[in-house]
């Protein structure tokens, strides 16, 4: 549905996006993940026709967006990093204006507004001035704006930035709702959000795509070894002795913990072997009470840090 080929954008000498290519199928939910200044917003701006690529091209349904900007922009609803709101308008006035601007037929504008205010849950504030709304509501009005005219593609740049945890969950539910009839492209540096809603993650760092996979695969690919977290009551030397007797256990790291007389320990196993049982018996043999044990999966956060730091070392 959307295809980017050798996309490059430079601001003067600064290379914001460096020769990236990707393609997004209909109905997919794609997450752009990356630190600030990685080129996420620039890429999104190019996809929406707000910026022209320095090199390369973007096609939507096979049409180059630079060839037919007016036609292709109809397919895309865009929520920029800062929602483009007119503070002096009420929510309904604003949505009506956006509808007219997007050349939505008059009858459909009214239907769209009624449908969208209920979908994004802003019906109770629809006659209030946007200036007086809270940040969470403003963000939702921004999403409502992108939904006007019911475009098949939605591009949301950091939809949950600056929101409190409750609002983040609400936005996440909303995105899950939108998934049903839209192709979604979401950027974020709030990682759980991406892994919760996206089918595929593109990790972008310094204008390059570092990785592209499903959140689960990325996690699997990068974990590689089997890590176990333990909380053990006892002396450090005794713990180390007991654990080193376990076959396949490597990289034992011990650190003090909040609980008295206890230690936080991580053990890494070679390959895919599950060492949890062996660890249990080794510790019980040494009369070391085991307070907690859980397998450590690399979170998206770890993957992200791992990938971006690897990139830096290279």
């Amino acid at each position: 549905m959307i295809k980017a080929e050798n996309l490059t954008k430079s601001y003067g000498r600064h290379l914001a996006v460096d020769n990236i290519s990707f393609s997004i199928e209909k109905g997919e939910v794609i997450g752009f993940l990356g630190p600030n200044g990685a080129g996420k917003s620039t890429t999104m701006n190019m996809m929406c026709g707000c910026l022209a690529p320095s090199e390369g091209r973007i096609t939507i349904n096979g049409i180059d967006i630079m060839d037919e900007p007016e036609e292709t922009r109809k397919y895309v609803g865009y929520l920029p990093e800062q929602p483009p709101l007119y503070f002096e308008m009420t929510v309904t006035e604003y949505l009506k204006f956006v509808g007219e601007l997007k050349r939505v037929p008059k009858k459909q504008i009214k239907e769209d507004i009624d449908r969208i205010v209920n979908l994004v849950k802003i019906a109770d504030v629809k006659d209030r001035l946007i200036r007086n709304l809270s940040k969470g509501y403003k963000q939702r009005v921004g999403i409502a704006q992108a939904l006007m005219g019911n475009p098949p593609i939605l591009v949301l740049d950091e939809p949950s930035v600056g929101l409190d945890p409750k609002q983040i969950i609400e936005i996440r539910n909303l995105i899950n709702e939108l998934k049903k009839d839209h192709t979604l492209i979401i950027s974020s540096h709030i990682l759980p959000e991406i892994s919760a809603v996206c089918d595929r993650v593109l990790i972008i760092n310094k204008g390059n795509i570092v990785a592209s996979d499903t959140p689960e695969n990325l996690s699997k690919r990068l974990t590689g070894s089997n890590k176990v977290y333990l909380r053990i009551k006892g002396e450090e030397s005794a713990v180390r002795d007991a654990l080193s007797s376990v076959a396949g256990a490597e990289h034992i790291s011990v650190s003090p913990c909040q609980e008295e007389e206890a230690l936080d320990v991580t053990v890494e196993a070679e390959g895919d072997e599950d060492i949890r049982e062996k660890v249990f018996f080794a510790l019980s043999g040494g009369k070391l009470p085991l307070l907690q044990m859980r397998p450590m999966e690399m979170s998206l956060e770890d993957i992200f840090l791992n990938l971006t730091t690897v990139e830096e070392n290279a």
Partner: protein
Amino acid sequence: MLAVLKKEFKTYFITPVGYIFMGLFLLIAGITFVTGNVFSMSEDYANGTLSGLILVFVLAIPLLTMRIYTEEQRQKTEQLLMTAPIPTWQVVLGKFLAASLLFGMTLLVTVIFPILLSFHGRMEWPVIIGSYIGFFLLGCAFTSIGVFVSSLTDSQASAAIITLFLVLITWMIDFISGYMPQSNLSGIIFALVLALFLGLMVYNSSRNLTVSGLVLLAGLLVTGAILLINKEVFTSLITKSLNWFSLTSRFYNFPRGILKLSDLVYYLSFCGFFIYLTSRKIEKKRWS
């Protein structure tokens, strides 16, 4: 385009700007009318009162246009307009028309003055109608300058000051042009500078040395050819060109009841040129 026009026009009345503009303009127009026509028992509305109002709207037009693009840039709502499925020039045209419409509406209110006068004297309606048309066109031309300036900056104050300055300059051209050197030589130099300027402008936009060189050469050739054929052209060329450019000198045809097509075309193309410049300026942001 209609959506933008409607939104901008509404914004004038949601914010105080529209009321301030209308209020100030009508207050001063009223004072001028009372002192110029009522107390002095004069029938001369078009030449006296209406022409005297030019200075007022030279001062008031920046109020009308200062926020028109600066606010979009400041509130970051520009991205909404830039990703909308309509061409940029239509957005700019919508904004320009909204400002012109407000200005035209305010002007329409002052029609009450000549109507009041008509009960007590004989009015020359063609002259008055002509003046109003001219007045409106002049206002549109100033508005188009203002719209362009507001696209250059994201501060309302600087937009207002720069617009005021530019509008004042175009208004002052009439006085300045009289003091320009009148000799043939100065005319030739002026023509050469113009050719050089044109060449530089072409180079600046195309970065192509051959093309801009050719433009410069063509300019020189034309200057030389005219010098051989008809020297008279260069006599007081500067004054003539400045007068041709002057927005206000053309305006004075209207109160005389002369509605020339060339004047009409001049004003409309002036507005068109600045609307074009503005949309180029906005489009440029995509490529920055």
